[in-house]
């Protein structure tokens, strides 16, 4: 293998774009799993559902990003419903919720995946937009425009969510519920309602992430299985619930995946995120920016 600096530079640039995208698809999970401790394995499946929602709206000539934004309120309500159900069925009953809660979200992911297969078939689906298919040349490098668009939206999404959690009253309440639920209850707030709200936001973010997913490339119903590894490795590497950590972890994953992709080939790439995840879990389970 010939080591080439240009190739490495290209891998890093591509990795940064990819990494921001990974951070954006993981940030919803960072709220639902990282802050709320819900074992939300169905997060990537909900995201893929968002991609298909985008696909349907785009048939009427809308831009995929606009479609993703339109889907957000719908997914917000959906997320609130899912959390309410999870709470009533598991969290309230207390003991043994662990195994069954995980199995519940696993079943939910399956239902979404197969539902999508029944509705749309197993073929890959993609959308059209002015920026899809074109690329920008910087010197020798050619950067696909769709990655830049996804990069931009990802940055906006993450900034907005970080500001929301740190500056607004509800946002701070969400962080408080993650830190000490009992104390919040003593302050006269209802932790369940705050968690429900937060889960709604996490799901709405997943809708927009789904739109980014279909902008980046074609989607298929089984895509969520790959993203279980990517999203969870980002969230765990970040340290549960840390928003800056999510960006850093996304970048680490993106860059390492793109270097492996360019130097060893596509057949090794799927193992990167899961390998990273295993290493982090084995060495430093609290992550880079753990609380």
């Amino acid at each position, binding site marked *: 293998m010939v080591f080439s600096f240009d190739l490495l530079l290209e891998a890093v640039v591509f990795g940064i774009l990819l990494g921001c995208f990974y951070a954006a698809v993981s940030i919803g999970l960072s709220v639902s*799993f990282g802050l709320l401790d819900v*074992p939300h*394995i169905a997060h990537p499946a909900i995201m893929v559902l968002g991609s298909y929602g985008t696909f349907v709206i785009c048939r009427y000539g809308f831009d995929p990003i606009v479609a993703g934004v339109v889907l957000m309120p719908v997914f917000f309500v959906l997320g609130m419903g899912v959390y309410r159900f999870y709470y009533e*069925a598991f969290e309230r009953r207390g*003991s*043994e919720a*662990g*195994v*069954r809660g*995980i*199995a*519940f979200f*696993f*079943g*939910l992911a*399956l*239902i979404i*995946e*197969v*539902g999508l*297969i*029944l509705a749309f078939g197993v073929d890959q689906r993609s959308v059209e937009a002015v920026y899809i298919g074109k690329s920008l040349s910087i010197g020798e490098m050619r950067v696909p425009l769709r990655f830049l668009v996804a990069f931009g939206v990802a940055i906006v999404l993450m900034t907005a969510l970080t500001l929301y959690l740190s500056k607004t009253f509800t946002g701070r309440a969400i962080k408080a519920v993650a830190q000490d639920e009992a104390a919040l209850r003593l302050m006269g707030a209802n932790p369940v309602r705050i968690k429900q709200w937060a889960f709604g936001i996490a799901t709405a973010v997943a809708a927009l992430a789904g739109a980014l997913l279909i902008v980046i490339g074609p989607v298929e119903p089984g895509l969520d*299985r790959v993203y*279980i*590894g990517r999203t*969870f*490795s980002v969230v*765990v590497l970040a340290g549960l619930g840390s928003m800056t950590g999510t960006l850093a972890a996304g970048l680490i994953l993106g860059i390492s995946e793109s270097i492996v992709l360019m130097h060893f080939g596509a*057949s*090794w790439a*799927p*193992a990167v995120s*899961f*390998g990273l*995840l*295993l290493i982090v*879990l*084995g060495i430093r*389970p609290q992550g880079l920016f753990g609380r």
Partner: protein
Amino acid sequence: MKFWVSAGIAFALAVIAAATLKNEYYFFAGYTVLMFVVLATAWNILGGYAGYVNFGTPAFFGLGAYTAAVLFKATAAPLALQILAAATMSGLLGCAAGLLTLRLRGIFFAIATIALVVIIETLFNNWRYAGGATGLQLLRPPPTAPFESYVKMLFVLMAALAVAAVAIARYIERSWIGRGLRAIRDSEEAAECSGVPTLRLKVFACTVSGALMGVGGATMPMYLSFIEPASTFNLNYAIGALASPMIGGTAGYLGPVIGAILLSTIQQVVTVTISSEMNVMVVGVLLVVFVVAAPEGILGLIKKWTRSSSR
């Protein structure tokens, strides 16, 4: 005693079926059902008794299958040796996984096991000798004396393996090991404080569970005369192995057996009559319904029903 009599009857029925029935399809389907009995029983040792959710079934199953296939390709070893080698390799993987993930609990353990599947699949995808991503064609030897077809032989063999797996699970459940694992499930801290060797028991459960899953996969290459990574490491095995005990009941060794027989029979029927997508949908819906409405599974429902009718 009652257990051994009913196990003997079940095995005898399998032998009689193999001797009398002509239609090969029944044995193709029956093999799958029995394989899921093995996988579900193996899953339940760690998942049901100790409360550790394992999504890694395809990793252990697939490693077992590939061990058997590679051994067969290299030395044309007989089936018994292939199964033994598969159990050893998958058991070692289980032991290693147990040691590596000792500190992880709940969802973290579950995700780590998914990671295991993808990493091992990637390794086999890139291993040329084992066929890489395109797979490996295997030439089945002729069946051994009393059997006229290979599939029937595998069916009877799988019935014997299923009985053995359930017997092992039953033994563990009733011994001090099972009590220790249940203590871990209820509260790991309390178990540790009461002198339960939690670490050793967890690694032991991982090893036995992994080895049995490897046994479940060992005859797969011969069953299909073919092996390839994408279908061998398919998450659908994880789904079946997890959903069966959840539906049947995780508390005792009978739960996974009932769940696996019911679930894989429904799956076979749905696959044939409707579609293979619909069969995964059925599993997903049943899993969610049981987990929410009947946390103790079918066995729990039966217990509740007999108790209320006797009153």
